[in-house]
């Protein structure tokens, strides 16, 4: 087969850029929500298993088992979407791009596939032997840690591909440059933290949903009051009504705890994201300026505002959850959480100002006002990278940190009473799960669109034209018609 025939066979299935893009968006965003949850929650399961071993805490063991079951249920569906994505969407609709990318990142994708095999072996082995491994807790923990490491590598490798598409920087001729391209490490750290926060958010959502379901009619159990009794018939020494009520009460307490555990992970980890995301954006600014400009000042800047709004909402909902829990438990300084929620709302509003609300640095220079404010100028003490936003982000992080720390302190001092949650806190947690899920969707849209008009920045366009005539994409370049 000569080169022209080869290239003809790579011609994509007919379709518009828009429809092809929509197909990618639907399939991959669905896949990402599942894959990132499994990746992040393995760490949570390993942590729970370790705590359960150290403290003999059954709640953590139950949580670990629940997570394992969820991976088994979700893994099949997540893999199916990935296979569909590769076989039909990429090979069918984006054939030239995909072939080029696969050739460039061949070894990365080979190792990625190998990690899937390890994941399958570990997940199903643990699923089949969870109860049997109860007698060998260290082995079980070891398997969970192994799975965590495997999935982290899986994410690392796919991040190599994703970040290479944004900042190739010679990575198509040098494997090390490909792996350590400028945005690879920031993206990996961003996603590692994001996956953990997302898994926490899923736990918060599931816990809150179950809590609300169980307390739909009768409301929350009182912290120290006996469960509602309705004796129907007796089972041994205990009336069936007692048994059911006690079981229900135990369930409510468990899901309340799951929600709290999830909220803490979700909010505490998201606190790191402004730092990490900002640094990631800085690398994009340094190495793919047009993509950065599109995100911050261009077509995607309004979508980015939505992202910042969602980020602020995470902190607000977190502090509202903490406030409700502390308030209902009669914990000292509960009102501080309300104050923090109000401050966080104000900071969120400050952060979501459109870029054109404030003068850019170029405007400031043009007006001759590029001086410090104490010299009559307009320069923002916190910088000109979208004025006011940096200060709002720093504020969000600091006040969010205060909120989490206050709640954790109350928890460690025994001021948060189990069973004293109330439905309001659970609704906030439920919403938190939805918000973080939306953040992941929005971030996916921003990342994929920021490269336009390129699929691989500066190398292959959206129309699958190879534009870089440098030594990149060597095998395909020779066969260009």
């Amino acid at each position, binding site marked *: 087969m000569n080169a022209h025939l080869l290239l003809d066979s790579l011609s994509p299935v007919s379709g518009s850029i828009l429809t092809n893009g929509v197909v990618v968006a639907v399939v991959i965003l669905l896949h990402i929500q599942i894959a990132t949850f499994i990746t992040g929650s393995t760490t949570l399961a390993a942590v729970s298993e370790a705590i359960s071993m150290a403290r003999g805490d059954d709640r953590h063991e139950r949580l670990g088992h629940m997570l394992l079951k969820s991976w088994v249920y979700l893994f099949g569906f997540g893999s199916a979407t990935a296979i569909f994505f590769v076989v039909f969407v990429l090979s069918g609709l984006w054939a030239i791009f995909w072939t080029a990318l696969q050739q460039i990142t061949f070894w990365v994708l080979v190792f990625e596939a190998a990690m899937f095999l390890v994941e399958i072996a570990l997940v199903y082995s643990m699923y089949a032997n969870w109860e049997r491994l109860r007698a060998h807790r260290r082995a079980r923990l070891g398997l969970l840690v192994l799975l965590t490491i495997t999935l982290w590598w899986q994410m690392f490798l796919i991040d190599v591909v994703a970040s290479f598409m944004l900042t190739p920087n010679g990575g198509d001729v040098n494997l090390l440059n490909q792996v350590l391209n400028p945005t690879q490490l920031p993206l990996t750290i961003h996603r590692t933290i994001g996956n953990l926060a997302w898994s926490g958010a899923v736990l918060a959502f599931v816990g809150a949903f179950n809590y609300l379901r169980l307390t739909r009619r009768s409301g929350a159990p009182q912290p120290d009051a006996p469960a509602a009794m309705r004796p129907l018939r007796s089972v041994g020494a205990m009336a069936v009504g007692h048994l059911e009520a006690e079981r229900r009460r135990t369930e409510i307490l468990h899901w309340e705890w799951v929600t709290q555990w999830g909220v803490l992970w979700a909010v505490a980890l998201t606190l790191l994201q402004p730092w990490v995301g900002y*640094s990631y954006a800085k690398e994009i600014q340094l190495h793919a300026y047009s993509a950065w400009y599109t995100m911050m000042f261009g077509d995607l800047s309004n979508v980015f505002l939505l992202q910042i709004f969602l980020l602020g909402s995470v902190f607000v909902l977190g502090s509202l959850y903490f406030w409700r829990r502390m308030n209902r438990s009669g914990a000292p300084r509960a009102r501080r959480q309300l104050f923090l929620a109000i401050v966080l709302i104000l900071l969120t509003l400050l952060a979501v100002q459109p870029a054109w609300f404030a003068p850019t640095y170029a405007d400031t220079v043009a007006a001759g006002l590029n001086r410090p404010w104490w010299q009559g100028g307009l320069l923002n003490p916190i910088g000109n990278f979208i004025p006011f936003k940096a200060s709002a982000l720093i504020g969000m992080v600091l006040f969010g940190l205060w909120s989490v720390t206050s709640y954790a*302190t109350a928890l460690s001092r025994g001021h948060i009473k189990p069973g004293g949650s109330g439905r309001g806190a659970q609704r906030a947690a439920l919403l938190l799960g939805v918000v973080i899920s939306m953040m992941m969707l929005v971030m996916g849209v921003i990342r994929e669109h920021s490269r336009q008009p390129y699929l691989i920045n500066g190398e292959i366009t959206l129309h699958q034209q190879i534009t870089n005539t440098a030594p990149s994409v060597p095998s395909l370049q020779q066969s260009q018609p």
Partner: protein
Amino acid sequence: MSSWLTRPITTRLRAGMEWFDDRTGATELLHKGLYEAVPKKGGWAYALGSATLALILLQLFTGIFLLLDYVPSVNEAYNSLDYLRSSDAFGAWVRGLHLWGSYTLIFVIGLHMLRTFLSASYKRPRELNWVSGAVLFFLVLGLAITGAMLPWDQAAYWTSVVVTNIPHYIPFIGDGIRKLLRGGDFVGPITLTRTFAIHVWVLPFLMFSLIGAHLYLLRRHGEFGAWVNYDTDPGEDEEKQIGERIRHAEPPYPAKRIGRRYAAPRETVPFFPNQLFKDVALSTVLVAVIFVMGLISGAPLDGPSNPATLSYVPTPEWFFLPLDQFLVVAPTNPLIAIAIFGVIGLGAALMVLLPFIDRSPERRPLRRPEVIIPALFMAFTVIFFAVLGINRLYNL
């Protein structure tokens, strides 16, 4: 006189020692130093403090040897080190020892502080131990950065340019500080002599004064660790238990009361030989590693400084990577320096003043989320910026 001369040599030595001891009290001092009580548990973790001291002394000795050849002048500094490298039998090794000693010192002092932080050893009555230790940490960083400026090769010259320029961003007084450090508007001969004076006189003087204070306070209050059980047994008469403990406590204990807790460990052992063995063992291993690294890797020396070059990209030492990356991610507006100085200054102030902020009697890390969570956040930030710094240098 004659009878003293005719006595056996051992008798004469003993008499000499007695005379010396009578005048100085050396035996009592040695006894006090060797037989003080230290906690039975956690000895290896406490050895980090002695290792820090050993490494500081190693820096002092290797620094003295370097001083024998080094000439602090812009015309001769580079040549003197180049001579040391190429013509002195052990010159390159001694430079390597000084460099790797400084790297190891920063690492070990960091671990020592981490141990102290996690075990909450900074709490009453050891607040000033922590304060002096935290200031010592900053002095060591100061020594490291001034030391990096002395070779006056390309790396040293451009490090001097960058480092002395940082204070310029401080409003009102920044330019004055920069001028003071540089000895003028630009980096030049006076910059080098001032840096040299700071490196070999000012900072060591402050450091050894603080080390003295730190050791005195350590001996006054004794070692302390969170994993030692300071609580009294529940269900038994607390006052009786305390009485027993005080009766059996050895110096520097008896216990000091902090609320319902006591600053003395339950089980103690004498410093000699138990703790001393661990201290010497760890210090020996570290010094051995430094000797090997100094021999294998040595210390780099770029080409002579060239202020006219446009192509040289200065790279920071590894321990300043987080700070360097912080400067990189900051917006280009010079006023961001206020925020940087604010953040770093606030972080440093919080670190030094930690014992006065965290006043709760709790010592276990999980019981102190109010300090552990912000500390984790700060630690993450530092590590994250270091990783990004490496990433940036790779992709330059």
